[in-house]
């Protein structure tokens, strides 16, 4: 499956509203229809949930870190302390319209099972992750000979919570493998701008710093 066929234009969401917001948050928020019920897995300090709630979306969150949870609850958000690897199984099927996994997939122990769970409890899933195929990553490993570190991924290899890095290409392969339909795919450059659509996939995989995917169950749209 080639990503370009799945991708849709973005209508300048990021440049219009991108003040202090994270680019991928704005992109994700734009993918969610108003009035939807959403679960944000790994919701951090609740920034994305706040954007969603301001758009009239019924947002819930799971966060691993106690500090993150308490920040969220103190903002009045419906967030519970929990682990994407272990706690998603407690949610019933079709509990949400969208389940969001924002910059968290690479920190899970079992990304494949997490992804399957996302599309069990949500009719759609929105997944964003850092692209390990980004040219700066490749260059650091190729030329520098050390594990890559960037502004967005500053942790050293021995401190990083990110244990399952993948490239955009790897992720697309996983989606094919577990029969997930990609409704929309976007690659963002290091400024958070979406890359042009009519570029070959290897270009995305080289110059996209992160990938954002809107997914659904393949069997539902046969």
């Amino acid at each position, binding site marked *: 499956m080639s990503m370009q066929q799945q991708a849709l234009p973005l209508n300048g969401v990021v440049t219009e509203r991108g003040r202090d917001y994270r680019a991928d948050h704005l992109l994700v928020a734009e993918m969610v229809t108003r009035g939807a019920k959403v679960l944000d897995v790994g919701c951090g300090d609740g920034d994305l949930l706040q954007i969603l709630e301001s758009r009239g979306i019924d947002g819930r969150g799971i966060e691993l870190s*106690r500090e993150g*949870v*308490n920040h969220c609850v103190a903002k*009045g958000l419906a*967030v*519970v302390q929990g682990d994407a690897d272990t*706690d998603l199984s407690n*949610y019933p099927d079709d509990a949400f319209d969208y389940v969001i996994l924002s910059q968290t997939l690479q920190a899970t122990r079992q990304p494949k099972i997490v992804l399957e769970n996302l599309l069990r409890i949500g009719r759609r899933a929105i997944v964003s992750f850092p692209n390990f195929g980004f040219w700066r990553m490749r260059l650091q490993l190729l030329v520098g000979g050390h594990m890559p570190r960037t502004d967005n991924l500053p942790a050293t290899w021995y401190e990083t919570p990110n244990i399952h890095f993948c490239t955009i290409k790897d992720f697309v392969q996983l989606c094919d493998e577990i029969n997930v339909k990609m409704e929309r795919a976007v690659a963002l450059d290091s400024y958070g701008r979406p890359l042009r659509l009519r570029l070959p996939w290897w270009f995305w995989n080289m110059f996209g710093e992160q990938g954002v995917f809107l997914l659904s169950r393949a069997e539902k749209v046969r």
Partner: protein
Amino acid sequence: MPGWKQMTGLTSNVTPKSRSTKPKRTIQPEERSHEVDHPTSKLAVFGVDQPLRLDCGVDLSPFQIAYQTYGELNADRSNAILVCHALTGDQHVANRHPVTGKPGWWETMVGPGRPLDTSSYFIICSNVIGGCMGSTGPASINAATGKVWGLDFPIITIPDMVRAQAMLIDQLGIDTLFAVVGGSMGGMQALQWTAAYPARVFAALAIACATRHSAQNIAFHELGRQAVMADPDWDHGRYADKGAHPHRGLAVARMAAHITYLSDAALHRKFGRRMQDRDLPTFSFDADFQVESYLRYQGSSFVERFDANSYLYLTRAMDYFDIAADHDGVLAEAFRAIKTRFCVVSFTSDWLFPTPESRALVHALNASGARVSFAEIETDRGHDAFLLDVPEFLDIARAFLESAGKARGLTEPRS
């Protein structure tokens, strides 16, 4: 507990230095019975035409509920918050206690500018059925016999307590509570409210509690009850007839329970192995250690304000509590399609209601699609943390109620 040092003077002469643990009586019997029958609180009386249907099959009638209110009910009656008290608490949440003279038990939480802001919300707290501060319980007079109920009082449950509270709320003309808030046994009542009357509770804040009482907690309660019953003054629960009270047994029960409200770390921090008013051990069974002195104080001060039979009944009510059991063992069924907003809070060092109990509740609420927030607060202060000044916890309570208030269309509390 906060302020106990100031109240007692840890290093002063409050702790008896004799070998006897028998507490000094400073409260007159007449004074206690006055609070039981004629409390210095508002009183809702339910006559024979309004019996309380108890889970044990008995209709309790007549009965009365003693309650305190703070703040003002707004015009559309939408700002009422019911505070549910814990096992040995009472309705005096935010006022001087009529028996002990101490400040209200939750003044960190309830008052002007507090999370339960009395300038915005109408706060209600009632003494539970089975209690001894003015609501009908085993220390009350049985109208049928003219004598103190004692063990003739029917066994009550957490759902019974909540049913009685609902009758009070009806009488106050309130249809839907903005929130039900409680910790420990109070949290159990808050959860029972949402399970029994989901449409009448807009938001529920359940702190340091569980949907059922664990085997370990039942065991601790049994220890306390046996301590009461082992006191010869208990006299099979008929002590009131002779003007006696099983102080020693009840004090031991309180001492044992009090250990479970704290934590190893908190006890170590507060007392360590420090000695009480002495540098060397006395080689006796005196309260050589500060921690012993503290526990003895907790025991002796408790019996001045609490009825022994009431302690038996209320611990029993907690033991029987199991929300899932009423729903074929499936907890999520208890909260099916519920619209209530939940906030669940646990404390890291609480070994009476440890975090996994709260997590099980949260999982059930998630499964039923409820809107739930859950935070675990890092503290070494044990179960009692919910009564103390723990800023992170109070911030969460405030934010939860503020955001629920916005959704409810209430004006935001002035801070």
